[in-house]
């Protein structure tokens, strides 16, 4: 069997590089099966090198070769390598640390206007709910649904209302805490998603939340339990209401970027902001976790009003410090 008298340039080109392509293909097969973890450190370093090599091979091959199978193969190979190299860049642990040390507080500051706006909306709801219920206790029923009230209505006696504030649950605390956490987180994440509908449902949800809270505060205040009510709500409420504000802000950013795309195309603008504010929603989920733990354990176990007030103050100070001071320095440049 004799070799052809002369070889095409493109065939020569292929002979010289084929080995590297095969090596890349082998690595990709393993990554696609078992993830990046299945590679050794040396192979992990080799992957981007081989990827760039294959990418330049593709550029050259498009210019000099007409072998369709080769072009298809290289295109697919580079595509696969691209997905691996640019798919999951950082290890999850690093991403989580970076998120809490920098990304989350930074994104809260960037969208501070929206966070303030959603806080204002909720505060407006609270004030309105409080004043309207104070003027006419019957309105309580239209602000607080049956399932939410759980017997805490103007019809209940002062003694019953007080009992709710100081009833320490027994035994079921962990279930209660995890229920609160999952329930609130789901609502928070829904708030983000609803932003897609131009943000209108988000505004509605924020107002409604505030109205319910205000109405309940008015009910307790009318029985002289106002201070104790807030001492009951705020230890976890600071965190929880803060998280709700963040989710509301995320939803409103989404709605705004859809309605007012500015200089970008609507689609591009949405994608640009969507990724950013997804961080708000994720951070809020963690805040809900904290709030759920406080509400489910601490509030049920600690009855003293003074301690409750101090915990509320501590959480407020903590979040204020966290969002205003943490992560001001430039992030470590992690992009390749």
């Amino acid at each position, binding site marked *: *069997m*004799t*070799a*052809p*008298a002369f*070889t*095409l*340039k*493109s*065939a020569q080109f292929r*002979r010289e590089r084929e080995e590297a392509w*095969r090596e890349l*293909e082998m690595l990709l097969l393993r*990554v*696609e099966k078992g*993830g*990046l973890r299945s590679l050794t450190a040396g192979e992990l370093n080799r992957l981007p090198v081989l990827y760039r090599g294959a*990418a*330049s091979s*593709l*550029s050259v091959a498009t210019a000099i070769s*007409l*072998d*369709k*199978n*080769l072009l298809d*193969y290289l*295109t*697919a190979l580079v*595509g696969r390598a*691209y*997905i*691996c190299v*640019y*798919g*999951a*860049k950082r290890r*999850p642990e690093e*991403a989580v640390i970076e*998120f809490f040390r920098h990304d989350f507080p930074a994104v809260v500051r960037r969208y501070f206007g929206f966070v303030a706006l959603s806080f204002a909306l909720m505060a407006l709801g609270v004030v309105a709910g409080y004043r309207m219920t104070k003027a006419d206790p019957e309105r309580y029923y239209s602000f607080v649904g049956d399932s939410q009230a759980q017997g805490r209505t103007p019809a209940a006696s002062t003694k019953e209302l007080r009992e709710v504030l100081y009833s320490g649950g027994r*035994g079921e605390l962990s279930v209660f805490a*995890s229920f609160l*956490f*999952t329930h609130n*987180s*789901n609502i928070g994440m829904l708030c*983000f*998603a*609803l932003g*897609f*509908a131009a943000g209108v449902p988000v505004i509605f949800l924020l107002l409604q939340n505030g109205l319910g809270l205000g109405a309940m505060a008015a009910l307790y205040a009318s029985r002289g339990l106002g201070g104790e009510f807030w001492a009951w709500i705020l230890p976890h409420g600071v965190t929880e209401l803060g998280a709700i504000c963040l989710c509301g802000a995320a939803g409103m950013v989404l709605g705004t970027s859809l309605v007012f795309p500015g200089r970008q195309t609507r*689609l591009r603008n*949405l*994608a*640009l902001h*969507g*990724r950013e504010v*997804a*961080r708000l929603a*994720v951070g809020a989920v963690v805040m809900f976790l904290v709030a759920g733990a406080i509400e489910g354990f601490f509030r049920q176990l600690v009855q003293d009003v003074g301690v409750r007030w101090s915990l509320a103050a501590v959480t407020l100070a903590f979040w204020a410090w966290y969002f205003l001071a943490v992560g001001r320095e430039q992030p470590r440049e992690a992009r390749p």
Partner: protein
Amino acid sequence: MSAIAIGKDRIHRVPTPEGISLPFAVAAVGDRAAAFLFDLLIIIAGTVAVWLLALLGSRVGLGSVGFSFALLVGFLLWNFYFVHFEISGGGATFGKRKMGVRVISRDGGPLTAEAVFARNLMRNLEFYLPVSALLVPEALVPESPGWGRLLALGWLGVFALMPFFNQDRLRCGDLVAGTLVVKAPEAVLLSDLSDRATVRPARRPQPTGVTGPPPPPPPSEEFPFTREQLDIYGVHELQVLEDLLRRDDQGVLDLRVLEDVCEKIKAKIGWPADRWQVPVRPFLQAFYRAQRAALEQRMLFGQRRERKKG
């Protein structure tokens, strides 16, 4: 970002940071739906399993710890199953892997964790909320009117059908996150037809002498093609011929097709009548080689001819 349609698949070109534009085939809606159903089954099975365990645990005296565990695991499964596997699995959950589709970033940059979060948070709006409104409307709105379900059905329809209304098959979550679901590219490198002596694929055994001598192709002196003869066909025809030869290699092509093509080529290029009878495979391989050499030569000088003349 540009996109062209080739054949059935829509091709979306992604500019990579290296400055090349990589074509990806946009995943079919059916494949994505199947992948989602598969993942949903895993999630549902997982949820049922933890609740059964919790029930079992409470029977043997573990008390309520099991239930809070089940609540948390269920929450994690429903909200972070997709997020976790799309981040750690290179843009693919089990279902996506099974159906051969992947998530990538539409602008060519890395697929970030935020983007994955954003696209999956939208599932709340797209699927979970309308489905729960459909199944238990009372849980959302206490005094749900009868048409509430109809509304939920319409809602579900709008979002579920969203991928049909745009060419890149983006669902809501993809819009918000700037992502795209593509077919996982795959292709096998076959031997170079012009370079048979170096790499040879496994051929089916063939009685020699019946259909002509086996490759390697005889030196091109045996079939001397002139410049004019190689000046007729273009890239498209060359690649059609390549496809035929490769299919013949794999033994999935009727020899008569090859003979037919051979006759047509001879007629088109004006093959001399006195040497009209040629062995089919060697002739076609030699022609492929010569034709490719000629076209690649032209390409180096910046002339790419896509189609044959006339």
